[in-house]
């Protein structure tokens, strides 16, 4: 996992206050709008994303670059792979 601070983020997704299944739905819709290889950063408040975002990446074949909790927020970065 790489440190988020050093990454060049192409798109940021505000998922604060949103619950299942919206974070993965929004991620799925947004990833189509970036190029293959580009990075999306998501910021969420639902603890469920800690399980769901990695699972979503495994199911869809996209890369989970990083995921971490900072206080009450969860930050993750996903790279579009295909």
């Amino acid at each position, binding site marked *: 996992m790489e440190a988020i601070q050093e990454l060049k983020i192409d798109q940021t997704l505000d998922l604060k*206050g*949103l*619950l*299942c*299944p*919206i974070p*993965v*739905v929004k*991620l*799925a*819709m947004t990833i189509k709008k970036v190029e293959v290889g580009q990075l999306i950063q998501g910021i969420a408040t639902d603890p469920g994303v800690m399980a769901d975002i990695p*699972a*979503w990446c495994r*199911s*869809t*074949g996209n890369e989970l670059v990083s995921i971490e909790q900072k206080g009450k927020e969860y930050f993750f970065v996903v790279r579009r792979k295909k």
Partner: protein
Amino acid sequence: MEEKKKITMVVFSGDMDKAMAAFIIATGAAASGMAVTMFFTFWGLQTIKKPTRTGKGFFGKMLGWMLKDLNGIGPSKMNFGGMGRWMFKKMMKSKNVAMLPDLRQMATELGVKMEACQMSMDVMEIRKEDLIDEVAEVVGVAAMLEEAQQSTFTLFI
């Protein structure tokens, strides 16, 4: 290109809580890159019905008065004549959970295929025009089974 994984869902129930489960799984699966078919039958038809009254004959019309649409259905437990529906909606809103109409809209945007059961529509006197335009097809059990056979898993809700 690898073949898309596929799931089929039979939505039999017309309860708010079960419909929530159905549409959450459907949107989640579609967002995870799976092809999703939802087959709506019997009470489940209420979740894809327009708010209009249905029915042709006496019984059909009577049933039509009782049938709800996606906004009108209540939870399977603790509805207490609509109080439960009101309370759940209020609680979900305060916690910012996506409501049923939003979930169904999202399902459509994600390409979830919606099919309605011909036989239960005949019995309940519901016409294709009574259903929302997003319903792709009206089919029978064989068509549903064909889809189920090609699916990784099938759910009955």
